[in-house]
């Protein structure tokens, strides 16, 4: 039901893009079902639930999942257990987000969900319905961003497997904090691992990019 990502937790309550099935609505549906279950028999419980919460009863077979990715709405046939990362990499053909740990530690799979960085490996694709997903491919359709240029110029990458993840989190930082301090840059990178040890130059690149237009 709920994404474990920080982004979902911090989403403002009035967000119109929030999933249409809330916990309260689900429980309300369950309540009416419980009352009538004895009379109608267990067979119809599922039907009742389905009527009360049509969105909650999907799967386990593949189901149509509509995602808005990099500004384009597409429908995929996905099992509800498919992660957002699998949907992007295996079904949408977007291999910029990388799978490196598959348990929300390394950050290589980071994408933006309604502008907030989330680990795509820790989120189900169906939970991303209704909110805009941005992958690294979506950032540079009009050419590289100042941050991407700065990362290349400062050599803030080596093997590059972690790079799309860093790019996404630092892009999100730039949107909320256009002139970050070194400490803020480090904090933004704290959910990312780089085994080649490019951190010093990733930090330098983020700071350089933030100074690009004015100072």
């Amino acid at each position: 039901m709920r994404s474990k990502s920080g982004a979902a937790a911090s989403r403002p309550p009035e967000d119109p893009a929030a999933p249409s099935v809330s916990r309260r609505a689900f429980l309300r549906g369950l309540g009416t079902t419980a009352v009538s279950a004895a009379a109608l028999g267990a067979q119809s419980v599922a039907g009742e639930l389905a009527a009360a919460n049509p969105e909650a009863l999907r799967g386990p077979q593949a189901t149509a999942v509509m995602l808005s990715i990099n500004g384009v709405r597409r429908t995929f046939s996905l099992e509800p257990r498919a992660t957002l990362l699998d949907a992007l990499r295996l079904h949408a053909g977007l291999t910029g987000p990388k799978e490196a740990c598959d348990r929300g530690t390394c950050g290589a799979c980071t994408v933006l969900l309604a502008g907030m960085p989330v680990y795509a490996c820790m989120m189900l694709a169906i939970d991303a319905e209704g909110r805009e997903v941005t992958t690294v491919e979506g950032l540079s359709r009009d050419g590289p961003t100042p941050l991407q240029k700065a990362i290349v110029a400062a050599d803030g990458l080596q093997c590059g497997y972690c790079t799309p993840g860093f790019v996404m989190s630092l892009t999100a930082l730039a949107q909320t904090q256009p002139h970050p301090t070194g400490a803020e840059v480090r904090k933004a990178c704290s959910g990312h691992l780089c085994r080649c040890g490019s951190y010093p130059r990733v930090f330098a690149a983020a700071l350089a990019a933030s100074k690009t237009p004015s100072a």
Partner: protein
Amino acid sequence: MPWPQTTKYFGRSSPRLEGPAKAAGRARYTADVELPGMLYGAIIRSTWPAAHIRAVRLDQVRAAPGIRAAITAQDGAFDVHFYGAELAAVAGISRQAVLDALTLVEIDAEPRPFLVDELEALRAEAPRVVPARANLTDGKAQATADVDAAFAASAAVVEGTFETQVELHHPLEPHGHAASWEGDELTTWSSTQAVFGCRSAFAQALQVPQNKVRVICEHMGGGFGAKFNPGVEGILCARLARVAGAPVKLILTRFEQALAVGNRPSSHQQIKLGADATGRLTAFQLESFGTSGYDVGANTGGGSGSARFPAPYIYKVPATRVKQGTVAINAGLSCAMRAPGHPVASFGMEAILDDLAVKLGRDPLELRLLNDPSEIRQREYRLGAEKFGWKQKYRKPGSSAGPIKSGIGCAGAAWMSGGRGTQAELEINPDGTVAVRVGTQDLGTGSRTVIQVVAAEMLGLDLAAVAVGVGDTRFPPSGASGGSATTASVAPAIYDACEKALAELAKSSAIADPRGAHWLKACKTLGSAPLRVRGVWREGLSTGGAGGVQFAEVEVDTETGFVTIRKILVVQDCGAVVNRLTCESQINGGVIMGIGYALYEERVMDRATGVVLNPNLETYKLPGAADIPEIDIVLLDMPERGVIGVGEPCTIPTASAIANAVANALGVRVPRLPITPDRVLAALGRVPPPSRQARARAALKSAFARIAQMPEPIGPEESPA
């Protein structure tokens, strides 16, 4: 050396050629390869640390929905020696289908006794990890005459026991392959440090002629020594594709990365060091053992995985006695890992040297200047000490005031770094553009950019005019990217190709020097056919033997045991620097990996179940954004020496310098890596040692006694690197 003196690119900083593609997420790695009809592959692994496998039955798996192939890892019955050993592999139409089918495998196994504790494995009554071999193997003893007399004549003798952990490579890109058959021809997309090495290994394992195997590695997400060959997973992937009649992609999980694709062996070192009254080293004695898993380690292109290491490392001591063994436990095999043996060797030797300095009441830097035989490191120590402010910062061990103690330390390293044998193809097009093709690979080290820089420099072109192809066995052969050999092996071949191409172009165009203003005109005379020449590695442009030193400044909180690194200064020799930007990045990376080795990383195994307890990245701690100190790099640019690789030497002395800085801060030695808060507090006597520790100490002592009994010498003489 004929490398140009005045340069546009050579020795300067050029951005990574593939940087824009990587930053935009366009760079295609093995896991990103998608072919029509491609299946998803996965491996079924042993959940027994030791077992006799009577049979692996896959009938139910094959009947499962979406499954296209299922194969056993070995024919008939076989033994497994570690949790994670490959039993079978499955390919199906989706990840979900395969994951569901994995539960249907039936394994008839007879579990056997196992042990994952090195000290237990050394006990006389311990069960054998591999029945055909004693647990203590790979013994090697070397001695010069009169070691005991030399100790007796020494003015000061120090003794210590130092231990290092099993470290995991954990490249961010997991091991993996995509394999596709067209008839009897195999193409693989492999995440590898050696496309040609992989081609040979695939051909041999699959009984296919080498001219029918092509291995491609366009972009590669790190290897650090663990990706020299296809591995069991690569062969299984190609076999699955053959059985299924469809391409298969098989990428390992992070969990599997911790079990079955190599590691850096542990070490337990008992060292005795003697010096005369002036501080000159007189005698050295080492007993050591460590584990490289259930055997003496995988023999990979980048060096053996044995637990032995060079001793007394970079120092020349007149009298030495060295006895080393490797102890088997039920764990995955080690393999080469970034400077195999050297960080291990450096930690013990540099630690005992500092302990000697304390005993003699000397500055440890002075003691190194007195004893280090390398003229280059002598220069580096002097230069570094000046820049670091060693004299101003150095205080007697443990003498800083307050609960947070500061300290400094230093250490040196050597690495052979030589390379040879590469061939390169250079193509000059009639429009003046150039393509260079080399069957090397770029692991993230910047070798593609090195090729571009050399070609652009030699031909007098802009970087943008030079396209570079690497990572394909259809390109001219080059060796494995290991041993820090790539730059030294590749750059001279590019140089040679450029020289030949210029000579041919001069001849065909009748323009004596076709470079610069005449370039386009000269190229136009080629007509419609590009000029192609083959360059080969040649003497005189590259060399080996990189020396480096590092200085560390730390703060240790004596109440929490937490170590904070304030600064690392690197003074590194790598001969002629080809591309400063990527060279420095490698050094940053070496230092940061050294920080992980010093403070955070350790594979932990459970004695009761034989499993790796931290097979992921939240419990196996890699250095993260908050752990990165100020890193200062000074390159001792010496173009006259020729090109030398730098990837490995820069990671060797980091942990030693940090450990010495911690000892200098505390006034006591933390003798075991990683230096975690509990070990700091235990060294300070702030927490009682765990009850197991006393038993472990006794077991360690008896283990060293067993090593000391090794007759000397028992193995052929081998000179340390």
